[in-house]
């Protein structure tokens, strides 16, 4: 059900007041509030769109997750942070 958790996170970052502002400083705490596996949380922290797509996240929700964080749609596959 982790895809559900990531999709909910993306939606909440857009629509829950204050969540996006808290995201940079409280990312781990926020991630802990969703049913997201450790590997998926790591992929989110590393901006690994390819990994998340392969894991089954809907590409539309994935686009939202990146764009709401200020990463342009065209750049979302070019910003992965290597481990």
């Amino acid at each position, binding site marked *: 059900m982790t895809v559900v958790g990531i999709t*909910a996170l993306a939606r909440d970052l857009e629509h829950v007041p204050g969540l996006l502002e808290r995201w940079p400083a409280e990312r781990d705490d926020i991630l802990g509030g969703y049913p997201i596996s450790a590997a998926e949380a790591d992929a989110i922290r590393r901006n690994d769109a390819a990994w998340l797509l392969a894991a089954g996240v809907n590409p539309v929700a994935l*686009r939202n997750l990146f764009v*709401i964080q200020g990463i342009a749609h065209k750049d979302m596959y070019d910003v992965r942070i290597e481990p």
Partner: protein
Amino acid sequence: MGRIVYSAATSHVAAIVKNPNADPARTANLDAAWTRMDAEIAAAELDAVVVVGTDHYETFGLDNYPAFCLGLNAEFDGWGEFGAPRIRVDGAPEAATVLLAGLTGAGFDVSRSHTMRLDHSFMTPLVRLPSTAATKVVPLFVNCNTPPLPSSRRCFDLGTALASAVAALPATDRVGVLATGGISHWVGVPRFGDVNEDFDRDFLRLLAAGRYDDVLAWPDAWINEHAGNGALELRTWMVAAGAAGGAAADVFAYEPMYPWATGIGVSRFGAAVPA
């Protein structure tokens, strides 16, 4: 007795209103098409317009994701997501209630929402075609991005049923249908930014010839491969085509809009019925 007097389709990317002059050589052609369509909608003197669009995880999430959903609000607010248009438009709850009953009676178990908000798939056309926004709006959501999707055939048949349901409207007698989405584009995947002009032109050529069976035979996997996941939105166009009785399309314009990362089509299905 109600009847559908205008049925049309347009792409809905928010860049249409966010970045309208991205490529003046091409947008001039599109602007002329939208101006023509807007004038036709105004001349049609619609009592209500069914806007057939989708959603991009703004209104619906995986907690509850319908195949079809009709909006019964008295008013509809836009999300304004990512800079998309954010306006408020009037609904037509009494007409929508009649349509819901008619579609359900025809075997289409359409969900309903009394609190629906609308993303750019509805709001962009409503802003670009202000005569539509000035009409009472009945939004019809179609799942275009969260498989399994209702088939294109099912969507065409839904349009046919919509035309029958409109006939049961007692007072709101002149109804329009405006589908939104497509044509080729890739959303949230590495191929974002590409446009398949050949696919787009073939699609529009088939519509202009009234060859809907050819389009309805395309598997989603084939559409996804050749025209992107965004082209799965073309099932909204099939609703409008079905509502127009399968009449051939008059293609007003097509442009491959690479700055907007999508092929843009503007078409009317069948003739406009004068007021």
